[in-house]
């Protein structure tokens, strides 16, 4: 009957729709170019990073227009396919890709992620794999190199580094009769009172994670963990550590630090508050220069060292590492590219776009090429890395949550740090 006649028509209709849809999107499962590589054909390495973060094209342009072409010219059998990933999403993308076994060959990863991905066997061990690993790593800053260490092996090499220095708005300072940025904790406290009259915050920061508070703890003479990274209790809650945080809490309670620091996403960001003279000082990295040049061309920031406390002026190491995945099918080629990242061709070219070099022997060349890095290079000499352990994100969460309570006044700084230390102890044991 009619029913029997119409059924095939509907199936056909559906088939047509599916085919049309797939044709429309113009893609019948394109093969990954890196999957098939013979000696005749050049191999293609996929490289994931976040260089193009925030619509800033300087770094991606340098990479695609000069650095990668230079490498490909020297190594005609290797092609590099760099893919830019949104900064906030790289971790999620790496995770899901690891779950599906669809990883790229190379990753420029945040220094905080390496131990975790090493523990998960996503990143490949480099010492013993890379022929000249010892020579290369000996020329890296120890603080940067340490971020690749997990279980006494190395799972990457430093790619770029940075640290936080004190950046000040001289207009804001001079409006309160202050001649120079605060060089010590004491100067910071006296400046706070003078600036309060002008309704300017003496200092602003956008969180209470390790990146934000460790400089104050270390400069106050405190510690975060024991040297072997096994314990936080007795270090994070030591009198010196407490004193460093207590100074910030006192300033916060007197209104000299805005509530941006406890995570108010509605507060003025430091990148806007400093040039607008709402904030007198911030701690931040070398990327800010380029951002301000674009948005606030008239603003002339002043750079100096982190205010010194009883422990000196000690900042925190940031940056990225270059890692090869265990899933890479072209390990020899990937290792070649990793070696290339440690040369002046890569390091100095990237330095010109705002990424600081990690190679010690290039120091003077870098300082000559990019004079603006001088305060950062100086600060890096004493800067320290955050504890490099797989549970690093959870440590940051624990610290931030407890310290927020201390800032809001529901807990004393001593209690907050003691509780945070106890939580972190648990995380460190879990990791080992």
């Amino acid at each position, binding site marked *: 009957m009619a029913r029997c006649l119409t059924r095939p028509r509907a199936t056909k209709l559906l088939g047509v729709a599916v085919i049309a849809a*797939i044709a429309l999107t113009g893609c019948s499962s394109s093969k990954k170019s890196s999957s098939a590589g013979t000696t005749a054909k050049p191999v293609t390495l996929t490289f994931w990073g976040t260089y193009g973060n925030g619509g800033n094209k300087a770094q991606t342009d340098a990479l695609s227009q000069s650095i990668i072409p230079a490498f490909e010219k020297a190594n005609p059998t290797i092609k590099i396919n760099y893919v830019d990933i949104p900064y906030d999403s790289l971790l999620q993308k790496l995770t899901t890709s690891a779950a599906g076994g669809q990883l790229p060959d190379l990753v420029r990863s945040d220094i905080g992620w390496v131990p975790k991905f090493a523990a998960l066997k996503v990143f490949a061990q480099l010492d013993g794999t890379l022929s000249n690993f010892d020579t290369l790593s000996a020329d890296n800053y120890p603080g940067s190199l340490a971020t690749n260490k997990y279980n006494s092996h190395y799972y990457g090499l430093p790619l770029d580094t940075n640290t936080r220095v004190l950046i000040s708005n001289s207009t804001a300072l001079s409006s309160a009769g202050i001649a120079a940025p605060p060089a010590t904790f004491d100067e910071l406290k006296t400046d706070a009172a003078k600036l309060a009259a002008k309704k300017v915050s003496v200092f602003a920061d956008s969180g209470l994670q390790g990146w934000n508070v460790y400089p104050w703890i270390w400069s106050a003479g405190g510690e975060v963990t024991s040297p072997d990274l096994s314990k936080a209790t007795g270090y994070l809650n030591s009198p010196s550590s407490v004193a460093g945080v207590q100074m910030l809490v006192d300033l916060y309670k007197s209104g000299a630090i805005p509530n941006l620091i406890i995570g108010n996403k509605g507060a003025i960001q430091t990148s806007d508050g400093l040039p607008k003279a709402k904030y007198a000082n911030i701690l931040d990295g070398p990327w800010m220069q380029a951002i301000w040049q674009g948005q606030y061309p008239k603003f002339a920031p002043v750079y100096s060292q982190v205010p010194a406390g009883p422990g000196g002026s000690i900042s925190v190491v940031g940056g990225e590492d270059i890692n090869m995945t265990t899933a890479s099918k072209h390990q020899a080629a990937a290792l070649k590219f990793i070696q290339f990242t440690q040369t002046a061709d890569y390091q100095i070219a990237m330095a010109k776009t705002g990424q600081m070099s990690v190679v010690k022997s290039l120091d003077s060349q870098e300082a000559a090429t990019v004079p603006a890095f001088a305060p950062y290079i100086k600060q890096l000499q004493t800067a320290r890395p955050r504890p490099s352990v797989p549970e690093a994100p959870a440590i940051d969460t624990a610290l931030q949550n407890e310290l927020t309570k201390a800032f809001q006044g529901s807990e004393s700084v001593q209690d907050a740090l003691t509780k945070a230390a106890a939580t972190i102890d648990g995380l460190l044991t879990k990791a080992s």
Partner: protein
Amino acid sequence: MTAIPALLRPSRRNRRLWRNSSRYIVLTVGAVIMVLPFIYMLSTSFKSQTYVLTIPPQFIPHPATIGNYRDAWTTDSFARYFLNSVLVALATTVLSLLLSSMMAYAFARFRFPGREILFKLLLLGLMVPAMMLIIPQFILAKYLGLIDSMAGLVVFYVGASLSLNTFLLRGFFQAIPVELEQAMQVDGAGSITRYWRLILPLAKPALATATIFTFLGSWDEFAWALTIINTPSKRTLPLAIALFQGQNSTLWGLVFAASIIAVVPVIVVFLLFQRYFVQGLTAGAVKG
């Protein structure tokens, strides 16, 4: 509405006038609240960063700049991403509407073993957080060879939209008088003819609603696109916009300019389909 002899009942007419104007006052206040944020966004998209978030707020940007739009459109291949989004959203909408209206027809008009349980299973799809399915789905997509392809976006967007669309359409199909279908059945029309020639045309308002929801859902989707797309030339708009959000500062003007470019097509789709919304459903079918 019944025609009331207006001249004979002046008091009633006044009351109606008053009621009408108060109605418009309420509606206008509501509409202003709805639209004001967009106006502010539009205005911000024409500002440079220096003039963002000032007190008092600037509604008319001064100095105005189209720099944000230029930057948004020229960064990478914004036009390409735009086209990708259009293709993916269209393919998803067509496929999803076809499949879910067929399912809805089965659920609304047939009694068969397992109907209740299958329908409940379908409802479960509305409730599970999409985020948690991402890892199993990614492994599945890899197995099906759909990684890094726009087909992979379409297939999974269709899968994710089936529950809501079927649920929505089933309700509307049930409201269509069964007598109309019986009459067609008497005339010898098979189920496919009835579905294609009677149910679908009568359910235009519901289909329009589903079209808008589905188009919107795939147009906006970020997490899945981020997960499976690797090649830059296959990116969709939400991925491109996410690349504008920096780690160290947010360029509000740029983000909003890019967003406005992304919002416009959706508004166009909505304007195209909105007139179907209000077409009488049962009234039109029975009386017309």
